[in-house]
């Protein structure tokens, strides 16, 4: 028996869950959705939109916006609302590294102006250049 569940299998289970919902069988629908949820763990490369929202600490509507704008990579079938866990982890890592650099501090606007000011010629350089 294979120990890997393919994406196609997950989509079949999603379709079945929708069919159960359409048929007015909420218990079966919930059971199938639970199975899909369990099988689409990060180790398998995908997260549900709910899981992505939890991991990022943002709302579901924010996750939907991220999917629409392509900031999160969608699973092959849009209706399943699966996103690539790698794209979620990228956002988590970027936030962590930006925050950590911020904790170190940033130059003030005045310091930035100083850093970007053209080098001043010293008296010695002036003599040497003349």
């Amino acid at each position, binding site marked *: 028996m294979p120990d890997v569940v393919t994406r196609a299998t997950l989509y079949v289970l999603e379709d079945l869950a929708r069919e159960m919902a359409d048929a007015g069988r909420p218990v079966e629908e919930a059971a199938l959705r639970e199975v899909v949820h369990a099988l689409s763990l990060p180790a398998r490369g995908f997260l549900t939109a709910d899981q992505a929202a939890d991991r990022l600490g943002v709302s579901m509507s924010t996750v939907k916006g*991220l999917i629409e704008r392509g900031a999160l990579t969608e699973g092959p079938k849009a209706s399943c609302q699966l996103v690539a866990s790698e794209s979620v982890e990228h956002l988590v890592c970027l*936030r962590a*590294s*930006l925050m950590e650099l911020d904790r170190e501090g*940033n130059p003030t606007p005045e310091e930035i102006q100083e850093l970007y000011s053209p080098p001043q010629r010293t008296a010695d350089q002036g003599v040497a250049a003349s």
Partner: protein
Amino acid sequence: MSRPPDRGVALERVVLDSSVLLGGYRLQLSAGAALGYYTVYWSSWIVAELVRNRTEWIALRAVSDRCDRAELRRRFRESRRRVNAVMDDLARTLRSVDYAQTSRKDLNWLRDRDDWPIMQTALAARADTLVTDNSRDFPLGEQRNGTLILGPAEFLAAAYAKFPGAEAAIRQYLQATDAPSRAAPSL
């Protein structure tokens, strides 16, 4: 403070000058790109200038704090680790262009030749907007070489006006910080 941009500005293809990646707006500006509101382009020149100026700032701060050599080395080590992590993560978020492939003609309005590669980056990226903190050399609120030049606050205000929900989404994303164990000691 520069003029607010016209409503017609796309704010889609954006170059962030190293001066804004160095300052306090880095978080929001980078988050906006990561969350897909606009695409940010940079170049090897911007990366080099950013790292050089950040390192120079660390050294200047150590001098003003009267640090000894051992403390200075510790700060450089810590900074290197943090900068490397950010550069690696930003490299996956921002798009790189080759500034050297663009023409230098029509750049004479920039007095400092060290600023030319910044404008060349904008040209290579076909950027609609250049965001910079260098108000001495770049005329904020004006167009040059087909690119609108804005300060970071003006750019964010324009982006928040153009993309409803962007400000809330960026705030939500940045507020949901990770576990304290990832925090680093301050300098």
